[in-house]
């Protein structure tokens, strides 16, 4: 199947290759320094199950809750982790992220692609994305990733991306992903899959650095999340209006991100 995209003819194979290249963890965009929210969660005690907050126990901020001593937990080892660590929470976290932060990013990427196909101004997409991302720490991480992504994209496709973003700017990553999709012949679904897959892989590979795990286990998580990625992408692939970008919030994710951003002792930027 051939499409004319932004003046360039492309076929299915070349689009898939571009998708593979962009999804590759080796792509030099600085993404290895990010954890898609996993480190903030782990630092807040995600892997160390604490008793749930119940009435009368007080309202200590869950983000700063001290996890109980390891021996007290009876959670199963589940394929890795130190004694008592509930590593199954990692793929669960990824699933929640897919429905919230990632869905917003994927929607923004799809709309950005749609607008850049006609070389239209992307600012409305950025405003819509930012309005749906109330946490400054989450916005900052997305913009830092976007900056690195844009640097590479401009090196690879300078003419096609000319004018998409102000010089030296740090647009959020989904806008860059969408613009790249527009100039490389990716369709909307592929752009959304890229955003979703990238977040899931980021969490899985960050997990290996945060707790002892078998890499086959984390890969299994990624594989098992493919349907959720596909479902999320299918939900947003048809979007063309910034107003329709998903807006599902994740209050605790925001709180974790804010706390993590103030920490100096961390492996990842976000």
């Amino acid at each position, binding site marked *: 199947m051939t499409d004319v995209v932004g003046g360039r003819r492309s076929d299915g194979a070349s689009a898939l290759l571009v998708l593979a290249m962009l999804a590759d963890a080796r792509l030099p965009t600085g993404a290895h*320094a990010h954890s898609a929210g996993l480190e903030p969660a782990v630092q807040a005690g995600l892997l160390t199950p604490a008793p749930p907050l119940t009435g009368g126990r007080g309202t200590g901020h869950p983000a700063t809750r001290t996890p109980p001593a390891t021996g007290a937990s009876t959670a199963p080892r589940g394929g890795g982790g130190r004694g008592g660590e509930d590593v199954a929470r990692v793929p669960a976290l990824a699933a929640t992220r897919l429905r919230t932060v990632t869905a917003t990013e994927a929607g923004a990427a799809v709309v950005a692609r749609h607008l850049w196909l006609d070389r239209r101004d992307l600012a409305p997409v950025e405003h819509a994305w930012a309005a749906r991302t109330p946490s400054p720490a989450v916005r900052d991480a997305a913009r830092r990733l976007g900056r690195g992504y844009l640097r590479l994209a401009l090196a690879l496709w300078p003419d096609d991306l000319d004018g998409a973003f102000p010089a030296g700017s740090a647009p959020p990553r989904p806008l860059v992903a969408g613009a790249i999709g527009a100039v490389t012949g990716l369709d909307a679904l592929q752009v959304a899959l890229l955003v979703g897959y990238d977040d899931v892989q980021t969490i899985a590979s960050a997990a290996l650095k945060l707790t002892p795990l078998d890499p086959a286990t984390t890969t299994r998580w990624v594989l098992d999340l493919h349907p959720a990625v596909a479902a999320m992408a299918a939900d947003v692939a048809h979007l063309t209006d910034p107003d329709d970008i998903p807006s599902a919030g994740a209050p605790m994710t925001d709180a974790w991100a804010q706390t993590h951003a103030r920490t100096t002792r*961390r492996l990842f930027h976000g």
Partner: protein
Amino acid sequence: MAETTVPARAFRLGVAGPVGTGKTSLIALLCRELADEIEMGVVTNDIYTDEDAQILRAAGVLEIDRIRAVETGACPHTAIRDDVTPNLIAVEDLERDHGPLDLVLVESGGDNLTATFSPALVDAQIFVLDVAGGGDVARKGGPGIARADLLVVNKTDLAPYVDVDVRRMLADASDARDGGPVIGLSRHDRASVDALTDWVRRMTTLVRAGGHTPVDPGPMAPHSHADEDGHVTVHSHEPVVDDDPEHPHERVSGTHAHPHERHPHALAHERPAV
């Protein structure tokens, strides 16, 4: 002769080497010695973001905001070689905030002998070993030791305590580098400190004048244009041969082409015969 064009950006100098060899104190020393002469900035790649940066800030050798810490996601090799984006961003932000800068030092997260900097990130690199790591390390070689623009064997004053023959170690290192520059450094040995700072000064001038080609000390043949003295600096013996920074090429034996623009993938000069 080198054109006197003013480069758009600072000389970027990487500092790599195993954990504990004294990279951070070497950087502190360079800041202490040179910050009054040239405009400097530092980017650190510590594992947990902040520790090395904090040490440098606490040492008071450079304005706090000129020392930037970068997260590397527990991948110190990647951050200086395979995907240098986070470091490039930090260097660019430094230049934006404090520019124009003459020299930016980039300290890699302490790691093993295979870690080397990409030419996309730095124009030259120093590899730091120390005597406490054992004399064997120099013999072992590896891309970091063999091909860095300058090898520093640090903490030479500790040699007696760890039963290391410094002169032997320096000679081994020199052999592993086909005679490339090696400095045996100790804070307490003023001559060695001067040798180091002279090298950095000369490199800064040279690179900013467009005369140095950053080369990835990877599979390509080793390159070291920068070794104007071409001598091994031994702890207490042969004096450092000073060089005229205006005419660095005169010491190179044989005839070579001397391009003065930077070609990241061209080999500008061959190593001078020892």
